[in-house]
């Protein structure tokens, strides 16, 4: 007795609970690995490449086992080529003979680190962990592409609301013609003819023929219905990703010597989060990196985050560069412009007026959103806690906050300071929708 059973439609993901348990177990290692992946990765990488390597410490499953490097062993191996009995062979280097490949990992030696892939969801969960995002924002960030229904031909089954009358009737007509369904006109004229003949009171052979013909046609009419289930067509829809418009994101950063690595790291997190947010909202997001000291330059991501420059600090140079790029490559109306600027707040005093002018007249009106974050360490925060005591750039930008609601500025010391900068953006969006 024998059965074939088709299990293909059974739910998959039977090992999901085990997977979750494993991830919980390895939480601290995974957290560290994700952090490294974030620091080492590109702004656009986030959530796309979940491949991480974690140390297997705390994850190995101990058991009593031999220490094969010691003692006496007899091994039998295949493929003897030149050895004869009694030969002495020099001990091969460790990991060679008989212990290669698989065996090493079985013995736990190859298990020092452990590589696997996190799903996008899992990766983002860890990434968001210390940013303290509200749940709502998390879901809207994690949300995958939105779908829109699009017509995709016709199908034979569907709900009545999707019935396509025109198509159905066309099929019906074609069938009626090919099956020679008698039309009402034909029948009517036949009936009239019969009535006519009967009115004249003649019971001729012709009348009888006409009666037979009428009966035949009526029978045929019943036999070939006006609309047959075969004719019915429904509109079919498929879900396709919702086409979003394009956005460009400008990352501006002060790279003069006063910016420390940890400040840059904070800035990077901020840029990543903004990019992540934008890429869920827009189909295409382009990135422009502009770094500046006393002069500004558009650079690639690598240079942006990892190279150091010396020099003074003139913020307007970066704003001018952005203005130039905007004009050349991203004509207004075609692009949604987002910008994020990170700086420690230094600026030459003489640059004040110029900054104000470019920001107020050109940049802010062109932007959907402009976020300025001032990164600083704890000590500096103490100094600048006082409202009167502000950095140069902060003082300039503070004048702009009133006039432009798309402008947000914050001081950021720890990763969990980053989110509030976004809050302005989200609250604005909510208000707009209502």
């Amino acid at each position, binding site marked *: 007795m024998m059965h074939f059973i088709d299990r293909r439609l059974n739910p998959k993901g039977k090992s999901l609970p085990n997977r979750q348990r494993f991830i919980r177990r390895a939480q601290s290692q995974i957290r560290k690995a994700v952090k490294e992946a974030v620091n080492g990765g590109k702004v656009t990488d986030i959530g796309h490449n979940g491949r991480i390597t974690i140390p297997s410490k705390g994850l190995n499953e101990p058991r009593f086992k*031999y220490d094969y490097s010691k003692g006496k062993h007899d091994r039998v191996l295949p493929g003897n080529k030149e050895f004869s009995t009694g030969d002495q062979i020099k001990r091969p280097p460790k990991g060679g003979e008989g212990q290669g490949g698989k065996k090493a990992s079985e013995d736990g030696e190859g298990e020092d680190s452990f590589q*696997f892939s996190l799903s996008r969801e899992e990766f983002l969960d860890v990434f968001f962990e210390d940013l303290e995002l509200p749940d709502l924002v998390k879901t809207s960030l994690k949300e995958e592409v939105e779908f829109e229904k699009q017509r995709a031909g016709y199908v034979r089954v569907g709900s009545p609301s999707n019935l396509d009358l025109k198509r159905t009737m066309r099929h019906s007509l074609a069938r009626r013609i090919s099956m020679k369904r008698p039309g009402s006109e034909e029948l009517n004229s036949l009936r009239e003819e019969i009535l006519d003949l009967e009115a004249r009171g003649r019971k001729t052979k012709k009348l009888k023929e006409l009666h037979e013909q009428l009966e035949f046609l009526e029978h045929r009419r019943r036999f070939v219905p006006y609309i047959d289930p075969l004719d019915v067509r429904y509109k079919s829809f498929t879900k396709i990703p919702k086409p979003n418009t394009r956005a460009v994101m400008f990352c501006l950063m002060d790279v003069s010597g006063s910016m420390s690595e940890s400040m840059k790291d904070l800035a990077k997190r901020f840029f990543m989060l903004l990019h992540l947010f934008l890429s869920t909202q827009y189909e295409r997001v382009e990135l422009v990196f502009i770094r500046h000291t006393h002069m500004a330059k558009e650079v690639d991501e690598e240079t942006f985050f990892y190279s150091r420059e010396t020099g003074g600090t003139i913020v307007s140079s970066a704003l001018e560069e952005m203005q130039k790029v905007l004009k050349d490559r991203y004509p207004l109306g075609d692009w949604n412009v987002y910008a994020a600027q990170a700086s420690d707040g230094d600026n030459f005093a003489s640059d004040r007026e110029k900054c104000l002018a470019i920001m107020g007249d050109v940049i802010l009106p062109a932007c959907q959103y402009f976020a300025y974050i001032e990164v600083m360490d704890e000590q500096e925060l103490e100094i600048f806690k006082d409202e009167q005591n502000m950095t140069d750039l902060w003082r300039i930008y503070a004048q702009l906050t009133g006039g432009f609601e798309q402008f947000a500025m914050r001081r950021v010391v720890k990763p969990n300071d980053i989110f509030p900068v976004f809050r302005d953006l989200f609250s604005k969006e909510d208000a707009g929708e209502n």
Partner: protein
Amino acid sequence: MAKAQEVQKPLYEGAEWSFEKLDCVYDAIEEIANTELGLNVYPNQIEVITSEQMLDAYSGIGMPLMYNHWSFGKSFVQDEFYYRKGMRGLAYEIVINSSPCISYIMEENTMTMQALVVAHAAFGHNHFFKNNHLFKQWTDAEAILDYMHFAREYINKCEERHGVEAVEELLDAAHALRENAVDHYSRPAPMSREMAKQRIDDREEHKRGDYRDIWRTLPHNEADVEDGEVKSQRQEANMAKFGLPEANLLYFFEKHSPVLEDWQREILRIVRNIAQYFYPQKQTKVMNEGCACFCHYYIMNRLFDKGLITEGAMLEFIDYHTRVVAQPDFDDQRWSGINPYALGFAMMQDIYRICHEPTDEDKQWFPDIAGSNNGIEVLKDAWANYRDESFILQFLSPKLIRDFRLFQIHDNSSLPHLKVEAIHDSRGYKKVRSALAKSHTVSAMTLDIQVADVEFEGDRAITLRHMVHDDVPIDGKEAEKVMRRIAQLWGYDVSLYCEDALTGKILATYDVTAC
């Protein structure tokens, strides 16, 4: 395998499979298996699954039902990673030693592959499961699925009642002793879900009556003033009572741990039962795969002889078969040990050859089977009554040793050189054969460790003993980790000493204090 030909029309063409084709091919295979090979199998249940489901099945060590534990998740994420990166393929089938015998076959396989898998798993492995004495003795194919169901439910319930973490901690400890959880000498009682439930009830009933007084309180002071002789007598009596030395560590803790609660004992029992279920598979890898490969090779060839499969299908089969039974040399990049498929298949074919076309050498080495002209019967007898170790010792022929160019290396870590002990010549055949057999023994895989002593009178410390053979020591770092888990199960201090099996000298000791 030349037989009179009765050429028929092929049962299928092309790569696509369907359930109708599967049915036809199954019937054709079954006919060959019954009439020509005379296989005796459990009823078959063949399930078609997707590659995703195959990955899932991997993580539960191949069982269709398994309780949850993070370690299965660990192997899952790893398998998944390697599979997605294309670094490792999936198995074409998984077969479960149960009645009905469940074989999983993958949707992606071609029709030829499905035929091969049915012959290999649903007949080859199935026959081996049903007839090999180790499987008969150690596993209960009728009951395993029910039992796994019970185990999963029970552990779920424990998680609800005692918390996921408490259960996880216990399972971690139990898993560390999985390989020391088999009774090597006595035959286990049959398992079943009803009996397991009944036993739990009985135990609770029994508890009131059989109160182990010695664990209830610390010994009174009088014990300390008792004279030594009385004390050691009592110790001896206790040793007998607890059946020391005991090599089945999990069993010992399940029965005698002073700190475990009933649900914890039951979980240890579950882990122990499952370990025991896999015990025969470890000892029969070469034979089991050899048997399955022999069957699929015979059956596929016969299908082709009868004209039931096309030349294209046959070519595809041969290509796959050749890769499965390939044995890379020791100095080859792909070398990762002796391939049980290669060795097993070669030995089965060789036995068949010895029975039907023996050489003079064969007649000398295997007088009782050479030329007996009943290869299938000899093979079936071997499949039923041997394990890898004894099978190799009995049947590895000089011809195969030459074919594989096997040689034996003696590696003494205290000497600077390795020595070639024997090669494929008349002086070496027996040596190579017995060395290869020895590497397939249970003791080559698991360490000889027992519960040697329990301090009943004092601090209740438990002492384990590792008998050291051939100077191969235990991995101390790992051992301490395992002992920390034992301390959880036992509740008191744990120590381990390593004793040389020949000289009785103590080579090393390890101690772990209970927290």
